[in-house]
């Protein structure tokens, strides 16, 4: 969408999230529906939202629970929103809540709706483990069985190993490669060293720890009570302030052995969490007494063929939104990039700062430029805070909006890569009226 075509101004009022927790910790008993409704209820409380102002809920989710396949709808109703609000679950891998946000933005722009709740949820503690196909088919056939003797057919051609369930791996369907493998290859291709990756991961943990300690994140986290109210979770639990280069260096490669550079220490981890944000037509928000934090400006989605460059999407998306707004990296005060892997982040940063990449791949005369370290992911990133796939997008947007206010900036640039070779970038402008 080009800036000139915009009819309306759309605001991001506020957002927040549940704490992000490592899978199999305090949220392990929750389903996606539970965290989703808690995030939406938290948002309602935080923004003092009048549910009747909402026209639609767009909510992201990647690993779907078959019981709540439209988790947006179930979460929305259980969070106490009026039954009359339609809800859509969107799926676009790690940028699912970004597409939720921009779908809402588009609908507001077209005058379809005035306001929407957006966000996403992921529960990696409870992924659907399935029986093997042959056994699934056998089970479904039994529904047609009429007499007990039909059950004899059931065991025909079934071997004991067919009874073992299969745990889905997070691998690319088209290539069969796990994301870590792809990233490791990409890092090697762009010459990103192991030490650089470890240093980047360390930086992420240290910044996240600092932001947590200084209370910057508190503002965007909705506390959740667990264990029948006996404890409250108010903080993310993946941040490791105690790690250092030596410890990181000791870890062996997780995906490509023995020469790979991607380790458990410089990758994002499996995370449970949910996010939610409130997006509105500017006039509608102001007329109803909401206090927006940012204006949603340009955004784009890009895609390449998955393979060597599975996670390089931001390098393609960033120049598009900058050009659209006629801005350069110098104009950006806040960068919030999704950190899937340290190797992936560094590859993207290198690509953006490479004349060769600009010429060959972006068909531009000059490189996009260098992302200044002091403006990038200053309150931590996915490597340290965690990455519940579909929740991350609204975390980036919320943090970007809050950082703009805290750091008194004007523009924020958000970027994220996603499975399938896809990518996204968005520019926010601080709301100052």
């Amino acid at each position, binding site marked *: 969408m080009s800036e000139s075509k915009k009819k309306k101004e759309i605001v991001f009022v506020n957002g927040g999230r549940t704490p992000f927790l490592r899978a199999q910790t305090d949220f392990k008993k929750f389903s996606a529906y539970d965290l989703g409704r808690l995030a939406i209820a938290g948002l309602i409380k935080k923004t003092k939202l009048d549910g009747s102002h909402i026209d639609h809920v767009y909510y992201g989710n990647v690993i779907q629970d078959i019981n709540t396949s439209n988790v947006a709808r179930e979460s929305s109703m259980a969070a*106490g929103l009026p039954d009359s609000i339609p809800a859509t679950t969107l799926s676009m891998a790690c940028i699912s809540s970004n597409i939720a946000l921009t779908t809402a933005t588009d609908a507001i722009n077209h005058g379809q709706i005035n306001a929407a709740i957006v966000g996403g949820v992921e529960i990696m503690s409870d992924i659907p483990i399935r029986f093997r196909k042959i056994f699934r088919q056998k089970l479904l056939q039994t529904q047609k069985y009429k007499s007990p003797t039909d059950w004899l057919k059931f065991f025909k051609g079934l071997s004991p190993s067919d009874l073992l369930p299969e745990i889905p791996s997070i691998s690319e369907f088209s290539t069969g490669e796990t994301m870590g493998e792809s990233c490791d290859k990409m890092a090697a291709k762009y010459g990103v060293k192991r030490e650089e990756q470890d240093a980047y991961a360390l930086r992420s943990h240290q910044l996240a720890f600092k932001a947590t300690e200084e209370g910057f994140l508190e503002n965007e986290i909705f506390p959740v009570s667990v264990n*029948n*109210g*006996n404890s*409250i979770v108010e903080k993310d639990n993946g941040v490791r302030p105690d790690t250092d280069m030596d410890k990181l260096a000791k870890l062996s490669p997780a995906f490509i052995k023995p020469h790979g550079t991607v380790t458990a220490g410089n990758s994002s981890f499996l995370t449970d969490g949910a996010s939610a944000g409130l997006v509105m037509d500017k006039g509608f928000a102001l007329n109803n007494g909401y206090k927006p934090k940012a204006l949603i400006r340009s955004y784009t989605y890009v895609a390449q063929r998955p393979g060597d460059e599975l996670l390089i999407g931001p390098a393609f998306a960033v120049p598009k939104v900058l050009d659209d707004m006629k801005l350069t990296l110098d104009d950006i005060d806040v960068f919030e990039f999704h950190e899937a892997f340290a190797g992936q982040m560094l590859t993207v940063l290198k690509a953006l700062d490479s004349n060769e990449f600009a010429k060959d791949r972006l068909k531009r005369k000059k490189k996009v430029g260098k992302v200044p370290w002091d403006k990038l992911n200053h309150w931590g990133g996915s490597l340290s805070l965690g990455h519940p796939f579909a929740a991350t997008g609204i975390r980036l947007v919320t943090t970007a909006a809050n950082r703009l206010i805290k750091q008194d900036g004007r523009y924020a640039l958000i970027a994220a890569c996603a499975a399938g070779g896809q990518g996204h970038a968005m520019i926010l402008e601080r709301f100052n009226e």
Partner: protein
Amino acid sequence: MNKKKKILQTETVENVAIITLDTPGEKVNKLNEQLIDEFSDLLDKLGSDDTLEGALLISGKENNFIAGADIEMFKTRETAEELSELSWTGHEILLRVENFDKPIVVGIHGSCMGGGTELALASHYRIVSDHKSTKIGLPEVKLGLLPGMGGTQRLPRLIGIQKALPYLLTGKNMYSYQAGKTGFADEVVHQYAVKEAGIKAVKKLKNEKVSHPDKRSALEKVSESNALGRNIIFSQARKRTQSETKGNYPAPPKIIDSVEYGYKHGFEKGLENESRLFGELAVTPESRALVQLFFAMNASKKNPLEKKREIKKIGVLGAGLMGSGITEVSIEDEFHVWLKDQKLENAMKGESSIRENLDKKVGKHIISEFERDETMSSVHPTETYDGFEDIDLVIEAVFEDLDLKRNIVKEIEDVCPDNTIFASNTSSLPISDIAKNAKRPENIVGMHYFSPVQKMPLLEIVKTDQTADWVVATAFDVGLRQGKNVIVVNDGPGFYTTRILAPYINEALLLLEEGAKIEDLDSAMKQFGFPVGPVALLDEVGIDVGAHVADTLSDKFEARGAKTSKKSKELMDEDYLGRKNKRGFYKYEKGSKKKKEVNEKIYKYFGGTDRLSFDQREIQYRLSTMMINEAVLCLQEEILKNPTDGDLGAILGLGFPPFLGGPFRYIDRIGLESFLESMNTLHSSNGDRFKPADLLLEMKSSQSLFHPKE
């Protein structure tokens, strides 16, 4: 028939007469004489019309099948014989239904109570909707009656004696899930399938014999199949009933008698006997009192006040037992509640305790897990006033400390809008004291709930001279939406309920000082009809709370020469707080769960462990008289508007024996003369606290009653 609109509408579908019960101008159907007449005519028609294969009986009301017999019918009948006859009229029509040669099927959706359930039992087939509004019950016992239209005969025969007795003896509801599980329902279907299922059932019954599901366990079947087994069942039921009712309620033992008689002498004789017992019970003072209570309770479910305003958001301050209880009853009627405590952890503990209570309902299939989550989303635990900018009503349930409460009034006046109501759930502090320095005293009212809030049906609203009418009307409305029976009283120390409880507890403490045994006091008052004895109650509410109440009220009592015990203060200072810190009149160590053991150590403060035996009657007289006379004083001082509120408040808030009808009905019942006589005796032996209220003497001279006969 006269010109009255008919209750029963009939249409014929596929040769099945579909009879719709729809009492004109009423929200619910009630069994009355007109209905019985119309139904009898219809049976004639059904019998003579050869084209009709059978009948299906359904209701035209939303979420109601039959609410029960119209209790107004009892009012016109005085004697046991007349009331027996009324019951027999019911038997005749239901016997006709039962023996009818064409199938008669009922389709129950919504509440089905008393006579409605008995009609269903006499029918040939019962279809029950799975809707949550569908509940089946025989609540006659709550009115001191027994189900007099065959309930004591047909229910045990249908679902088994052991499954039936709890429903007959407690009047509890059977929801559709249990209707299926017990075998009461032949079929459980969704509400829109009731009609179709009913037509099919008529056709099926026409062609074949259909047996009802027997859902009894093997053990139940064996023990109910022979006289010896049944003897054991009945004798155990009698024992339990005796221990629970202390013999104060005549209905439960008669219900057991009625069931047993039917098994010994057969169904027909059982019905005759049931009618006889029904008549006997209906004229007992206990039943009369309970029926009056029923009418008073219904009346207190309607808001007579005008100018109420709409409330959407409630702020509850303090997430303890009271605060979370108030929150729980509020969210069930779609209020949003900001539950604030000093620490978020405490607020969230309160939230979790509500969730646990809802989980119990999920366990009983009353609500689904989803509905639980949805309801829970209306609770917003917090530790700040963030969100209070548009709160309509604040209910404080913090510690009983006047300065603290006044500070909170100030805080609320600062953060909340000008029209926010401030309600205090104090149990004794005068509301006008709390409102003293308030900027907007007209917004301040007392909303006194009772613990546990989820179970105790009373809300006592306390208004001061300054409280605005709209504030009282709005608080009343909130109380009704929280499912409470509401009384409105005027402000004063302890208002009404705490005011009459204080001298009652005081008397118990004085008796202890005189050497009485703790267990004697409690058992005497339980025998009198209170659910909990006074000493155990003091342990439950907290000795510190008792001390606080005594402190608030002692000036008032002493001014009229009443002796007050200072023991609760003394005990509090010695860190005896009751159950909450496991230091009280009883022992609360683990292991001594089953039967409460008296904490002998506490006698140190009451003259040592050598105790005296007091006559049970003396204990009962002294304690009950203190409470009852204080109630009369409240009426005299216009704390109470009328005796009905006083009766309701004492029964629903303090557990005053319902079968006695409340303090005022009790005086009417035993007679003013005799009440004054026993008071005078106590006055001369125990001092001025037994001085009768002036109002009693005035009434004696004018020969009037608190509740003049209608």
